[in-house]
């Protein structure tokens, strides 16, 4: 019963791979979900040759908990309902260097079965694979976009890992972002061959599909002209709130002066820099945004030292830019909007 198959890009044969297809709208929605949130990572996965036999076997995977610093071997014992992956504690090896990847739980709304609402972030390839389910004989299915039976990475998606260290502990966050149309795929040199049937210029290239998924924000922009009609009654706060990104609470507190200073911007620019309306989002932005033409912002800017502004933007740059809510009201214009 103990069975776990490792798939290497060189040795894999298509018949051993299982893939589950999903509509393009699912892929787009998933990418949007990933981009709009950040995810905490509780542990790292390493391919580790326990037997020192020169090959990575099905159970040659090591999980290192960031919470406790303890190491576990995957499928060291028979899986059970309380230990679905047969983890058993092992001595932490000294020679661990870079993790191979992370599993991240999503709780993504379009996943009917939340048990499988996970992505595997492959550190080696810089790719993200979506877990979709399991087959009747208990193999995992990963998302197979082109329907050729083998798993595909989510196209046009890159990620960054942010690690903050406190004495005795590590907190790690993964943030996803949309890359240029084919950038992330072509950069995966060794893996490209195994996804040869994946066409990066197909309908999955990100920009157009992505924006069409953002129907909530586009309907918001289109309502702009009527929003401030003479009655002022069509402005609805609750309709705006649906675009607010969900978030994952950290395991522990990590002090950061830049984060605290940046939080002083959020009254006007939204929590974590994600505006809920047409005022500009500042997440992921650079320092020049600080020196805005808006007279109120100009006044605010006078109150912060250059060192403080640097700290603020060092923090804001770690936050993924909010693709959905890009402001059309980013620049102040005296002549605009005069409604006489």
């Amino acid at each position, binding site marked *: 019963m103990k069975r*776990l198959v490792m798939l290497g890009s060189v040795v894999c044969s298509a018949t051993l791979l299982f893939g589950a297809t999903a509509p393009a709208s699912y892929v787009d929605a998933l990418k949007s979900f990933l981009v709009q949130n950040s995810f905490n990572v509780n542990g790292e996965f390493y391919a580790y040759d326990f037997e020192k036999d020169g090959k990575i076997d099905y159970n040659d995977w090591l999980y290192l908990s960031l*919470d406790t610093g303890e190491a576990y071997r995957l499928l060291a014992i028979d899986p059970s309902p309380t230990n679905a992956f047969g983890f058993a504690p092992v001595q932490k090896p000294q020679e661990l260097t870079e993790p191979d990847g992370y599993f991240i739980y999503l709780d993504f709304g379009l996943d009917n079965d939340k048990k499988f609402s996970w992505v595997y972030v492959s550190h080696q390839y810089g790719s993200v694979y979506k877990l979709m389910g399991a087959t009747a004989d208990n193999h995992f299915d990963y998302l197979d976009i082109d329907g050729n039976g083998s798993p595909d990475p989510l196209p046009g998606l890159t990620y960054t890992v942010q690690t903050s260290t406190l004495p005795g502990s590590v907190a790690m966050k993964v943030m996803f972002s949309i890359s240029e149309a084919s950038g992330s795929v072509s950069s995966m040199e060794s893996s490209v061959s195994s996804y040869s049937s994946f066409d990066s210029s197909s309908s999955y290239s990100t920009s157009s599909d992505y924006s069409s998924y953002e129907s909530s924000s586009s309907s918001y922009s289109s309502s702009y002209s009527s929003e401030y009609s003479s009655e002022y009654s069509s402005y609805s706060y609750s309709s705006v709130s649906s675009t607010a990104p969900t978030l994952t609470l*950290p395991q522990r507190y990590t002090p950061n002066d830049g984060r605290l200073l940046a939080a002083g911007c959020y009254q006007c620019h939204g929590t974590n820099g994600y505006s809920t*309306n047409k005022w500009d989002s500042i997440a992921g932005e650079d320092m020049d945004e600080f020196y805005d033409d808006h007279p109120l912002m100009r006044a605010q800017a006078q*109150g912060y030292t250059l060192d403080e502004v640097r700290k603020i933007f060092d923090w804001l740059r770690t936050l993924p830019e909010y693709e959905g809510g890009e402001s059309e009201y980013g620049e102040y214009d005296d002549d605009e*909007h005069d409604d006489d």
Partner: protein
Amino acid sequence: MKRREFFKFTSLAAVGALLPKAANAATPPHVVVIGGGFAGATCAKYLKMWGGHSVQVTVVEEDPNYISPILSNLVLNNVRRINDLTFSYDDLKSRYGISVVHKKAVHIDTDRKIVGMHDGTALSYDKLVLAPGIDFKYTNGYDITKVPHAWVAGEQTLLLKQKIDALRNGETFLMSIPKSPYRCPPGPYERACVVADYLRKKGVRANLIVLDENPDIVVEKETFHQKFSEYGIDYRPNSAVTAVDDVAMSVRVVQNGQTTTIRVQALNVIPNQKGGAAIFLAGVNEGDFAPVDLRSYESLKKRDVYIIGDAHHSTQPKAGHIGNSEAKVCADAILRSLNGLAPMPSPKTNSACYSPVSSTEATWLTAVYKYDSANNKMVLASSTYPAASAPSSQNFYEMFYWAGNLFADTFK
């Protein structure tokens, strides 16, 4: 080089059990926040957003929902409804894992670190945040349903609206402005303008008297003097209301040592103010407000008690936007303290306020405060209080962007 990629598993009973759980952790420290307004709700949210699972947070708030005083003058002229300004605590609960207890704190024991509730239950805390907002110093025992202050939004706002809507040609509306410090410095002047504009647009030629206990308009002097003169508002500085008669609809006023009684058709007395009840229950007040270390908002009188928003004593204005700003500084300082760290030595806070002066135009005022360690004071970080050069329609719709993000940053 090792050959590896992603992997697949067998016998997957529950993927949720993928990651081994850490050994039983000790119960995280408990922060109790009394008051769920701009300061209290923000503090609770940011404690959880930054402290996550390392901290438990409970908000004690009597009311099931919060009704924002910000924008509430626009209920008077039908631009907003109370519903538009009402916020539930659902997101604080569901998104941040905050407990919200709708009870009234009636007893605070800072030695045993316990908060007693009106129903006999109690909460123990490791850190206590007091964000009770303001309370009123009434001149005498009059009926506030007949003479509403409308300085806490909701029922009071609607009562005031009824009075204003009932005004007829030739009748007089009188409002009084409390002695500084009071909640929302531009608020009373904004209200006078909004009401004057509303009556004018309705075609009601009523008189408007504004009694101000302060020697002059407190903020945005030029703008409000200009608007008052345009609207023909009878503005009387140095005028303290010393008694209110809710039957005769009259006030006794002392202006420059001279006492008069003014009788009108509609009264809006905004009483002088003090910190909310919780600071007195905890014994952290000095006079009407509570002194704090402005790097952390920890009480200067009791350890592990923090006071944010309108009830603390400082040079910062008493208002929702800066209450939110103070709350973040406080939340961060509490989390640092729970981790054995000192607060950030030089925090910044900021204030911004858009004020409507009619149903189509607004003005604004803003400031950044920095910590002056020599005097434990928050002082202006730039030399002036910048303000809008003039009221405009652009400011008017920007006001809703400002308020929308402020509301979301506090309650969502």
